[in-house]
Structure formats: structure tokens, C-alpha cells
């Protein structure tokens, strides 16, 4: 039901640092109708061409400035992922995504106080890396 908010169109791109491609990033809105502390983000999954990325390689940023690993996020209670704000998901990967077409899937799941199972949303997009 919130699937339309996952994985912002056109947001997936390789990330360079000091002249080297260190991974790729993509953006997403929250799969909910309010903002929450980052510790309530239950899980983030990324897969590339059907292959799931190791969760230790994923970093999450609620503000496009400070990045957390998924393990660190469990205690991040003072940063909020605000409603309507694009969060950035960075995947550490030497060389980033290779040139050409890729099927990228993003899944996010968050804990909601009044529903026993985490709310999740998932979206696959075909991404072209030039």
C-alpha cells in the first residue's frame, strides 16, 4: 500500500570518492504516513539483478549527511526519518554498478506500534548506468 513511495525514480547512481567509485546509492520516501526515529527502521534490503546485497554493506542516511550501518541504526533514536523526506541508501561496492542495465530492488520495513508485523514496501526498477 505504500509501495509507491519506495525507491524514488531516477535516484539510483554510482558514488565516487577521491576519483574512485566506491558504491552506489538510491533514495526513498518512508513506507508510512508519519516520521519515526531511525531505530524503528526494522530492515533495509537491496538486491542487484536478483542477487541480495550483504546487509553489512548497506548504509542508511535520514538526512543525506550522516550515515549509519543497519546494526548501528538499532540505537539511533535521536535522528528521525521525517515524512516526505528522501532518505539515502548507500551500498558499498568497489567499482559500483557496472555500465549497462540492472534490475535493482529496494525493500524497507519499519516497526509500527499498533500492528504486530513490520510495515514493508518493495519496488524493483530497471536502472541504466551510463
Amino acid at each position, binding site marked *: 500500500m505504500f*509501495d509507491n513511495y519506495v525507491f524514488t525514480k531516477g535516484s539510483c547512481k554510482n558514488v565516487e570518492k577521491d576519483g574512485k567509485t566506491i558504491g552506489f546509492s538510491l533514495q526513498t520516501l518512508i513506507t508510512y*504516513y508519519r516520521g519515526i526515529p531511525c531505530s524503528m527502521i*526494522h530492515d533495509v534490503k537491496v538486491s542487484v539483478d536478483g542477487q541480495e546485497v550483504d546487509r553489512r554493506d548497506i548504509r542508511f542516511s535520514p538526512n543525506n549527511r550522516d550515515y549509519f550501518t543497519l546494526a548501528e541504526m538499532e540505537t539511533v533514536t535521536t535522528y528521525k526519518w521525517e*515524512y*516526505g523526506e528522501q532518505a539515502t541508501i548507500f551500498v558499498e561496492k568497489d567499482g559500483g554498478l557496472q555500465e549497462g542495465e540492472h534490475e535493482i530492488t529496494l525493500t524497507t520495513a519499519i516497526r509500527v506500534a499498533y500492528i504486530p508485523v513490520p510495515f514493508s514496501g518493495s519496488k524493483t526498477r530497471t536502472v541504466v548506468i551510463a
Partner: protein
Amino acid sequence: MSQIKRSVSMFSLQDNYARGKMSLEDIFKFLSGLNVGMELISDQMIKGAPCPSDATLDRWDALVDRYQVGLVCNDIFINTNLYRNRTLTTKESTDLLIQEIKQANRLGFKLVRLVSMTPPEIIEPALPYAEKYNVTLALEIHAGMSFDHPMTKAFVDVIHKLASPYVGIVVDTGIFCRRHPRVSSNYFRHFGTSEAVIKYIDGIFERGTDPKRFYANQGGYPKELTDLFKNEQDETYAMFSDGYEMSEFSKLDEHMPYIKHFHGKVYEMTDAGIEYSIPYDELIRYLDEKGYRGYISTEYEGNRFVLPGDEVKEKAQVIMHQEMLKKYLDALER
């Protein structure tokens, strides 16, 4: 003359806000144009809530001053599952509620809506703060988790025990569905729910009951329903269908003194100007007879059943619902 007043919940405009089509100022303008009150979800539109920065509060104050929109209710949540490895203690949850009471007071609200499943034991310790800051605490009674749910029941027991003007309930009119919302059926149909399952569940409503009671009476999904399940979407549809209840209005009789507010649920305003599932004309006559003097807040939920690629018509649906409420309220005055 009827004492019932109208407002709009910001739940109704969530897609416009998330997509940047409406700013908070646009929303104030919209409500001011409709001449109705505002129900806010502070976690949704107030950055940093429940502890917003001074700059955020200054902007809020300026909008309130400029547009003079009545501040009716703030919807709040106690994040009892803040941590992955444990549930918050009663003390921690109470502290969060106290923080919310202070924020509501600062923003200018005299009523907060607590979401279903809020732990009942935090109300009594927070009551002195509710009194001091003049903020009433009201638990939402929502379809799927309404009066017969053990946690709702425990909460309502606390309300009746405390008998304080500062505690009460918010009733979501989704407990008065006469038929399953067809926008939801269409949405699930698009993702593969079988026609036979949709028809079976419509049939439950036609019998004058709702899926939650129907399943409960059968000790779970009846075999004739599970025999129709062909895929995961069928079971999901059956599961979500218990979120639409068909209660009698008289269910509210004993709670009337504690009802602080209504969420006027909208799944779909039809071209005929009625809500597809909920008989608002009958509801408004009932509430008027009972002397209800609070607000009915439009809560448009059809936004989550819009098919991918289709336009989300939140503003138009809100306007239609408000026009319908006004028509029924005006009719009472003749």
C-alpha cells in the same frame, strides 16, 4: 441548531504533502478556504516532533496567526517499539506521553488522539500533566481493534474508572461500514486477488455482519473461504477485510459522555456525493439525537488504494466529504 462541527485530518492530504504538491502553508490555506478545523499528525508535518526546533515552532505560529484555522486535535503515537530488542517500560512510555502533552499545548491543541493499542497503564500517571497543560487524551476506537479488542477494552475500562473530563475516546467511523470499500477491492484485484474471494467477502456484508465477527463465529476463516484461496493476495485480502466493521450506532450509547471526537472515514466519495461504505446521513442524525457537540474530521483513506500511475485525488475527495457533511448537518437545522 446542530452543535456538530467539521474538520479535516491531515491523514487525508498525506500524498500531496509527501510528494511536495502541498506545503504546510498550502494546507492551512486549503482549510481556511473550506472554513473548517485542522486535525494534525505532528509526526507527519512537524519536523523534529515531539521536540521541534524554535524555528519550526515560529513557522507554525506564523501560519496559525495568519490563517486562523481552528486547531481541533493532534494525532500522536507512543513509540513503544522504539528498540528492536525490547518494548518500552511503562515509565518510558509515560515520559513520551508527557512530552506529547507539552507539545500539543505548545502547538495550540486541547485534544490528542492516542492510536489504538496505546498501553492503558500510562494514562493515570500522565493525567496530572493533561490537567496542567489542558490537553485531553483520547484513545482511537478503530475498526479491526474496536470495543471488543482486549487492549481497547482495558483502555476503555480505565477511562470509565478515571471518569475525568481529560480522558475519552475518538471514534473512527470505519466501524460503521455497511459494505466493503470497493476501492480496496479494486486495488487488491489489480494485484491478483481472486474475484471469488472478493465476492465471498461482499457476501458477508450482505448478510448483515462483518468479516471480523463472521470469522470469529466460525473459529477462523471458514473452509468455504479457504477453499477459494488461490494465492497470497487472496489471504491478505481476507485478513485486511476484518478492518471494516459493521457495528450498530447504539454501540456508542454507553460511551457517549466520553466521546471527544470522530474520524469521519472516507474510502470513496462516489459521484452521487455519498461515501460508498458508511451511511453518514444516519450517523449524523444519531449523533445529533444524542447531543454530540464535537467535531467530525474527514479522514480520507482511499489515497492508499489508488492504483500505481493513477492520480491521487485527495483534495477533491475531502471537499466532497465536507460538502456531504455540511448538507446533512444543515438538514438537521430545518
